[in-house]
């Protein structure tokens, strides 16, 4: 059943066993899981069944994000299905090392292990439309009739990514079931505006919501779960804490901190001796999905060299796209316009001159909409668009500003940058990769360090994966939620989604969001059963 909060009388009160706040990926999976065994689940979704600019505007930050971080109105969606309404559906599991305490990375280590999450990955794969047949590379080699490039390497590993075609839109896919379920009610256009916290018992007794300013309805429930997304979980929890003396997981000022993204850096070109070796690394179409291999590092190698992992897909590119001259042309142009001399000035001049044909091609294409050389469109090598793990830093954070939205909730501000140590590990990792592919006579790798200014600037890509802001920890002094995702200082208030991830790995987080949410549903089912 779907109820429109806009049609409710002021002061309407609902009662539920479990109140799920947010109807995105985590919220829909949680409601779906609970609907099979919990009698009365209520989902509050701030948006409707479709995109509206009015709802989306409520995701606006108070000021532009720093360092090119995308606008928070663009990187997520505020309606049923959440950001699955615009995702690419690219999923892979985290690896065991992602959960471990790595002594070379501050603030690393989950209070749960890979073994705690692994049992839920198969079902998570089904939710994500990629089936439950896993990510075992030898299995996929057989399935696709394609082979790994360096099977014996102690440096490079080959991992598998899968995606549903078309992508799974979680409400479009699972909404009918939820609509028809006797156990689930969805209230749309329900913007959560506050919680009632009983400090004596540590319980949330009510959540308040509104479809328009001035209106207020409520839900009382045994259990509340916040599933607003990696940024909004922090913003709303900070807002709740302002009203409740920081008793909701914020006694040690951890809410909103350790914010992480997945930067995507086009940092290298790969020129292969024999391209037929790399078939596994090109998308293979299966029935309703695709599978593709990518390079990353062996776990022992990561430990021995104190690296963070890199997701290194290899994508065939044309001579035009691989041109150093065009990139250097932009760097020189920008520098001249700013009255500066760029780093590696000589290299850029050299690139420009040596690649003058591709620069001419670019001028013709952009200025005259014409092509000069057919060979510009020939495949010249592979590009590595590398997704890197960003390590958790306390000063990368989501915080509240002084400006309010129309419901009186403070708008967010984000402090965020990529630390030099992460960049250093990135380049060192790529250099090891270059050595390994050459040692195996696969080809040569060109690192694009001289483009650093642009690679870490206007050419930087993003996964739009928001993680870490309500981090999981075994100690309330260093985290916001415990290993069961229960907010410290509360007895019945949980958080689901990537905001609970203490570290973000090097692959998209959605499969792990779904897996941890199914795990949380198991926990809640038991709790409700025991009650």
């Amino acid at each position: 059943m779907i109820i429109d909060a806009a049609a409710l009388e002021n002061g309407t009160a609902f009662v539920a066993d479990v109140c799920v706040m947010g109807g995105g990926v985590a919220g829909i999976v949680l409601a779906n899981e609970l609907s099979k065994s919990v009698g009365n689940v209520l989902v509050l979704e701030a948006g409707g069944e479709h995109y509206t600019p009015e709802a989306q505007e409520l995701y606006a930050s108070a000021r532009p994000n720093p360092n090119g971080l995308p606008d928070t109105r663009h990187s997520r969606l505020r309606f049923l299905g959440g950001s699955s309404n615009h995702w690419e559906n690219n999923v892979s599991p985290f690896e065991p090392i992602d959960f471990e305490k790595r002594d070379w990375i501050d603030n690393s280590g989950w209070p749960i292990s890979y073994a705690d999450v692994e049992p839920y990955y198969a079902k998570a794969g089904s939710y994500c439309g990629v089936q439950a047949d896993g990510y075992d590379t030898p299995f996929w080699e057989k399935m696709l009739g394609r082979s790994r490039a360096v099977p014996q390497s102690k440096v490079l590993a080959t991992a598998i990514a899968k995606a549903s075609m078309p992508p799974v839109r979680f409400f479009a896919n699972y909404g009918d079931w939820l609509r028809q379920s006797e156990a689930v009610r969805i209230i749309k256009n329900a913007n959560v505006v506050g919680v009632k916290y009983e400090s004596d018992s540590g319980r949330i007794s009510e959540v308040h919501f509104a479809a328009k300013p001035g209106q207020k309805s409520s839900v009382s429930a045994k259990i509340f779960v916040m599933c607003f997304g990696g940024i909004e979980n922090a913003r709303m929890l900070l807002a709740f804490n302002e009203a409740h003396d920081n008793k909701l997981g914020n006694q040690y000022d951890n809410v909103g901190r350790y914010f992480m993204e997945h930067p995507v850096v086009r940092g290298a070109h790969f020129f292969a001796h024999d391209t037929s070796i790399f078939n596994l690394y090109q998308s293979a179409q299966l029935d309703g999905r695709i599978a593709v291999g990518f390079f990353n590092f062996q776990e022992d190698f990561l430990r021995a060299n104190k690296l963070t992992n890199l997701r290194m897909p290899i994508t065939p590119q044309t001579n035009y796209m691989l041109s150093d001259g065009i990139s250097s042309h932009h760097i020189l142009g920008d520098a001249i316009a700013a009255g500066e001399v760029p780093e590696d000035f000589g290299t850029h001049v050299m690139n420009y001159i040596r690649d003058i044909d591709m620069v001419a091609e670019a001028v013709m294409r952009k200025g005259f909409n014409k092509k000069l050389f057919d060979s510009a469109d020939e495949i010249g090598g592979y590009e590595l668009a590398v997704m890197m793990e960003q390590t958790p830093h306390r000063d990368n954070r989501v915080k509240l500003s002084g400006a309010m939205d129309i419901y009186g909730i403070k708008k967010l501000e984000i402090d965020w940058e990529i630390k030099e140590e992460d960049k250093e590990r990135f380049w060192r990792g790529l250099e090891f990769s270059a050595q390994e592919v050459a040692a195996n006579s696969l080809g040569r790798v060109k690192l694009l360090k001289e483009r650093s200014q642009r690679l870490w600037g206007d050419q930087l890509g993003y996964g739009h994966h928001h993680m870490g802001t309500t981090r999981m920890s075994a100690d309330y002094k260093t985290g916001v939620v415990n290993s069961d995702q229960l907010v410290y200082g509360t007895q019945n208030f949980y958080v689901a989604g990537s905001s609970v991830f203490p570290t973000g790995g090097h692959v998209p987080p959605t499969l792990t969001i779904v897996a941890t949410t199914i795990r949380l549903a198991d926990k809640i089912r038991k709790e409700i059963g025991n009650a």
Partner: protein
Amino acid sequence: MPDQSKRTFIKISALTMAGLPLVSSPSVVAASEPAAVSAMAKEFHVVYLAWVRAESVDPVDYLRSRGLHTISDKAAVRNLSKQDFACGNTIYINGFVLSKAEAAVIASMGKAAVIS
């Protein structure tokens, strides 16, 4: 004019007109040499200059110290190169991660082009 000829023509013209240090050396290549050979010699010379900047030893002496007395022994170069990559004995030249052995071979050819 075929694509490749056009590209080579523009490249060589630009290189020549630019009067870059790497091509202004006295006689990188004779004017009568084919353009492609000329361009390759210039690339080799770039490697030579990078080698000189990064290493204190002459590339030919370096190769001798590794037991390589002729660069035409391709198998020996290949073996040394694989060893270098395996143990991280590499050099970063114009973005490329090259083994020191292969870089020294190319640099020695670039050096020869200058002094010929």
